[in-house]
């Protein structure tokens, strides 16, 4: 418990936040790193995944290839990149490593989401002469949206967490707080840094949830299958029938056939 109170103290002391190397700056760096990496990963992975999912081919291969980037520990990738000609560009290697790391969840989820879009609806879309691009953008994409966003959110959380590794190579970000605390045997600082990373991840997650709700093409539509129909109060519009009055008896004839 002592660690927690100490970490709390660390976090609440203003001195740790301001100035060069303060938590404020580290937070900013971490965010930049995350946004940059996710931006690149999204730009690379989503168009590819959407296209492959739309065409329905090559997805397996692409997912497999992208897994290569993830299968090797990010730390090792960082070191290997440092040995490459890119080595001197420290931040770049970190971004590359994180992009490689973020691509598989994006790619896999988007591809699967697209393949699973309701075939009847897609068929209707194609039948009305939507071009491939239009079917994709107007139908498949909205239908696959939840799964795509799931991929984006998982990837982002993971990137936020993994970006701490940048510190090992002297990059910026919250990882620096952790490694510094580590080297000075300052457990409180380590815990504080970890808490900051977690908090950032939560906030980013929250923002993404909000964002996906706002951009969800199906917003406003009741999500399927959650219990019975909702019953809400409200003014009855009392649309009764009774408009016509009762008329007199119908006259009748008792005629025979001719």
């Amino acid at each position: 418990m002592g660690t927690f109170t100490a970490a709390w103290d660390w976090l609440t002391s203003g001195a740790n936040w301001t100035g060069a190397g303060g938590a404020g700056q580290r937070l900013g760096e971490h965010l930049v790193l995350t946004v940059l990496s996710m931006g690149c990963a999204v730009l690379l992975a989503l168009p590819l995944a959407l296209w492959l999912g739309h065409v329905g081919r090559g997805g397996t291969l692409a997912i497999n290839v992208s897994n290569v980037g993830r299968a090797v520990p990010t730390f090792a990738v960082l070191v290997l990149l440092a040995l490459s000609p890119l080595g001197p560009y420290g931040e770049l290697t970190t971004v590359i490593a994180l992009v490689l790391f973020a691509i598989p969840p994006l790619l896999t989820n988007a591809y699967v989401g697209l393949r699973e879009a309701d075939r009847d609806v897609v068929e209707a879309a194609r039948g009305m002469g939507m071009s491939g691009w239009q079917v994709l953008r107007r139908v498949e994409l909205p239908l696959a949206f939840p799964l795509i966003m799931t991929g984006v959110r998982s990837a982002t959380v993971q990137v936020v967490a993994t970006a701490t590794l940048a510190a090992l190579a002297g990059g910026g970000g919250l990882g620096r707080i952790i490694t510094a605390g580590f080297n000075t045997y300052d457990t409180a600082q380590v815990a504080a840094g970890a808490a900051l990373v977690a908090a950032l991840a939560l906030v980013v997650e929250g923002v993404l949830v909000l964002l996906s709700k706002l951009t969800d093409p199906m917003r406003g539509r009741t999500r399927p299958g959650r219990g019975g129909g909702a019953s809400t109060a409200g003014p009855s519009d009392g649309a009764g029938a009774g408009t016509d009055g009762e008329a007199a008896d119908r006259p009748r004839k008792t005629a025979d056939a001719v």
Partner: protein
Amino acid sequence: MIRFEQVSKRYADGTVAVEDLTFQIAEGELVTLVGPSGCGKTTTMKMVNRLIEPTSGQVLLDGADIATIDPVDLRRRIGYVIQQVGLFPHKTVLENTETVPRLLGHRRTRSRARAAELLELVGLDPDAHGRRYPDQLSGGQRQRVGVARALAADPPVLLMDEPFGAVDPLVREHLQTEFRKLQETVRKTVLFVTHDIEEAVRMGDRMAVYGAGRLEQFDAPSKVLGAPRTDYVADFVGADRGLKRLSVTPIERRDLEQPPIVRLDDRMAEATRRMRDQDARWAVVLDGSGELHGWVSSDAGPTEAGAAEGAGGAGPRQGRPGQDGEDSVRAHARRMEAWLPLGHSLKQAFSTMLQYDAGWIAVLDGDRFEGVLTPSGLHEALRRSIDSEQHVAEAERAEMLLAGSADGGAEKAAE
């Protein structure tokens, strides 16, 4: 028994789908539900198996408020054919069909056999289609699998939401017949939505006509057709509801005309005389045992041509000339194949007339000749049946007005 008590349903966005609904379906009764698109039929159904909870009022099943029954138990007792068919895309046709029996823990072999049986009942070959997935079926085939699936567990209550909407007339008739047959042996309590008024009339013990969220009429089909309670109902069941009554109005004895009757062995001259007496141009011919043989024209004689004005063009086989001498009726009589037993529907009578290109058909009771039905007779019968319903309906309406429960539906604008 299903009972609705002042049931209303208002959706989240304020749409009132069903309002103040009160009616009852007796045990073993098949009630057909018709009404304009969007009037709340599906909503009504789903409130019975609690897929939708009413906003107010209650639904009772065998006297118990369903709100108190566990939804799963409730639904196990209720077969449901959903409007959108909704087959399980991940199961084959056979697996889809045997879903509920398997759910109830029946043994695999037994439920499989039952599923195959039901598929055959709905006109699908279990061998050819059983192992396919729903995606590999046509629209109508899918719908039939949906029906088979709902029947598989033999539930005492059935909700069927346009179960035969996507199949062709032949299959539809087959399904209707099979279902009625089934219903006659094991009487289930059925709520059956359809957009086909004829189907509603043919299938229903009673018929519920909805207008925007309210029950406009709930009556025997013949009454709904014959005596629509409101303008709205009259309009809804169709300007041609008279024609639709063709299929529910039986041929009765009093609708028949009595043409002259001669025997096969009567002499032709005698026959001709009798026809002239009755001012008729043809006569019915019975054989020795009093059974229908055919007819004979008053102009019959040496010339075959110019025959049978106003009478059936039926029977290619002429009466065989010969043995009994030129003068016997037998030599001139024509076979009559356009006949129907008493009690069959006027629609069948009409169809038979047209099919045999006949101006009349004979009506038998067992083997006994009862008379002939002509187009005018048919028309009369139809008019009378409508009339009689109207009389009853008017009496009822008067009562209703006194009771103050009328919803002010206007009179049929008959004049």
